[in-house]
């Protein structure tokens, strides 16, 4: 770790990680289902080489265990490249951003409506990131699109709100500079401020979750191991 105050974050599977100034959550299901104790220690002054070696070992252990790590755990020289690689979905999170997942939004459904998980409630108003698919709609709304855990295609003219959308779909609000100009297929990574609670939207739907983008949408790369299919005729 760099100079100045540092943090030792000790994660012991299946122990839960204590929330400090920054919440780093790798997987909502893991976070919610885990239990445990987190030990925080702060150091002032210059870290010894041995301390840095120990930190590296702990980071590796955390990575192997699937536990999340935060950007400030990394050496300063690594952080810029880490931010750049974050968009690929293969790197740790940016500062102050917590990752949420669709399964971690609601508790298992009972006989009535949906209930937010405690995890999501705690993130209300905070910066989050979420991976999902843009819902393909026949009718687009200004400044607004839907993000779904699974690709969904709507046909509003025929089916209206009798749709096949999962209950966890999220309304994404975006300023024109962040709003995709056209439908984006494939997995997307969105980052912005989270807002929970029901609200009537311009598309006539009630949103349960909203993310207000604070940066452009990132299209996550595919892992290609085979030739691309034959190009299709222009539509």
């Amino acid at each position, binding site marked *: 770790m760099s100079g100045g105050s540092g943090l030792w974050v000790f994660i012991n599977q299946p122990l839960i990680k204590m929330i400090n100034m920054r919440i780093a959550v790798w997987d909502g299901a893991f976070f919610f289902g885990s239990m445990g104790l987190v030990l925080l220690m702060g150091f002032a002054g210059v870290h010894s080489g041995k301390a840095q070696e120990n930190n590296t070992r702990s980071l590796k252990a955390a990575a192997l265990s699937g536990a999340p790590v935060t950007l400030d755990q990394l050496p300063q020289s690594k952080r810029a490249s880490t931010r750049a690689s974050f968009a690929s979905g293969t790197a740790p999170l940016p500062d102050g951003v917590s990752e949420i997942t669709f399964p971690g939004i609601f508790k298992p459904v009972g006989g009535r409506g949906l209930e937010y998980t405690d995890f999501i409630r705690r993130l209300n108003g905070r910066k989050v990131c979420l991976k999902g698919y843009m819902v393909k709609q026949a009718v687009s709304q200004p400044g607004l699109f839907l993000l779904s855990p*699974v690709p969904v295609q709507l046909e509003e003219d025929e089916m209206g709100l*009798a749709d096949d959308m999962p209950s966890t779909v999220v309304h994404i609000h975006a300023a024109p500079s962040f709003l995709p100009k056209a439908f984006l297929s494939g997995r997307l990574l969105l980052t912005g401020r989270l807002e929970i609670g029901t609200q009537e939207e311009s598309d006539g739907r009630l949103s349960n979750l909203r993310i207000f983008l604070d940066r452009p949408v990132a299209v996550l790369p595919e892992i290609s191991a085979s030739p691309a299919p034959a190009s299709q005729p222009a539509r």
Partner: protein
Amino acid sequence: MKTNKQQSPYLARIAGLAVALATVTQLACAAPLVSRLTPPSALFTFGDSQPPIIARFLPGQRFDLQATVQPDAGTLITNAFFSMDGKPIAGGVTSTFATVSGLQTNSSIWTRRAFSVQRPGVHVLTLTAYQNDGSVVSTNGNFEIVGLGGEGEGRKAKNIIVLIGDGMGIAHRTAARIMSRGVQMGKANARLEMDQMPVTGVVITHSLNSIVTDSAPGAFCYSGGNKAQNSQQGVFPDDTTAAFDNPRVELMGEYLARTEGKSLGIVTTADVFDATPGAFGSHTADRSKGTGICDGYLDEMVTNANLRVLMGGGRKWFLPSTTPGSARSVASDSVLPAELAAAWNAPVGLADPARDLIGGFLSAGFTYAADNTTLESIPCTTDRLLGLFTLSNMNVAKDKIDHRRNNLTTDLVNDYGFPDQPMLDEMTGKALQVLSKNPKGFSIMIEGASIDKQAHLMDSDRWVLEAIEFDRAIGVCRRFAETNKDTLVIVTADHECGGINIIGASTVSNDTLKARAAGNTNGVSVLRDQTVGTYDAAGFPVYVNAADGYPITTDPDHKMLIGYAGNADRYEDWLTNPRPVQDSQQPFIKTAPLNTYPAHAYSRDTAGGYWVTGQVPGDQGVHTASDIPLSAQGPGALSFTGVMDNTDVFFKIMQSVLGKRD
């Protein structure tokens, strides 16, 4: 002194000009215009009084009369009244201003609510309107009251079961039979349940405004006996922008409750507000108004139609808007005009998105089932049942069956959050159990909804399994009818979807097909020319059923192949889509097997490189205008032969219930 004959020619010209000017002025101040007369008629629209008569009603069936009158500029319509066959119709006529664009300023709408006629025959409807400058306009239309006397089969139908396979054309049935029953040496090994019904007819499906209907008028024709405009159900069109003030037609459930004391059931695999169930339980010019439609189920249909069973998806309309998962909104809610509410014995209603509609049904004595386990355990004394198994549409049959078979914690059904959903035949069995509590009988509409939805997505294997699930529900109804012989069972559709047909079968094994579909760059020559077996090469595809009655796999060797006439652009690899969608939590890897996971319908099956150009714009298949088959059994079934209009079905059903017997 000059005589008249000797008047100056200049004066004569001036007089002539004055007469001409007066004539032109009078023409410019012509009588007001009646631009709409309801019920709709060819007599009013085209001046054609000959059959077919567009609007028809049962003796005593209630319907609204309405007319839109456009005044001359700067004037107002001050009064209007209706006459039938030259005699004024009693009862109050209310008026309001038109709110649609494109009409003359101060255009007004005149309405006589809840009118009915007992006397069979064609009747001339006249609207006479008065303008405040003394001008009068009068115009004619017509409608028919269909007599129910005469023919019969000895027994009236006490119970009516109408099964609607949404989008199910003749080829959907054939494909379901091939997959479910098999064919060898040219003969089907067994028949579907719907095949075994003794009477078959053909139904014409056009709507009031198009040869191609959608599901709203496509079902209202059966529930109300009349044509409707696309996207509208239970009503005729009008000239206001409000969705719940249109001129109404009394529905089958309402009529039979009022006149016979029968109960009503509505069962669907879709969201319960969707057009087909909605057409049997609501009156609206906008099928998308879910809050108002579902409120109406409780506020109107429980009282006026004896609604006693309502099951399907669509829980989102029944949750307060403050509850996550709700879709209730002011925009989709209904507040009825006071005059309509009074005439139709309906509450005016409130724009109340925060309403707990499940609580309302519970207060009305309904038993509520949120999942299949609860449904299966309802007491046998239950006489009112509300089942809401998903927030929106229920998952499709294939995914429900896969979920039951594999019992995985991570699959599509789990992803959607409702792991314990009933099948349509299970819902049907419970519905009939509950409705049978009424000794006066019942009518019920049972819908296999996603035959259509999956055909729109051109997902062949899924709509075939939907049709099989639908057929199993038909079987439950037929078993019921065998022990309750005064039950009329009708199997029909609202329209055909996709222009579907069975084009042949794969000439290769499933393993070879998968290999051909993976990473191929020459799709047409491989996946079409070397794979699609037509004529003799199609042979007889063999599917093996599991103990649950569904095929073990939808990808056997030499599988049946489906083509679409009403398709949009797409790729095709003939293989079952393992999931209709892909989980965003999983990486999208462009190698098998994950490359078979489609991002969306358009990019599905891309690896095989077989591009199929669609004949319609957009991304989805469409409804077609073709006729659809109808099957019938029970009292009055013999009348359902031949080619009939979809509205004829309503009258044949009511003949079976109400018609005189020898």
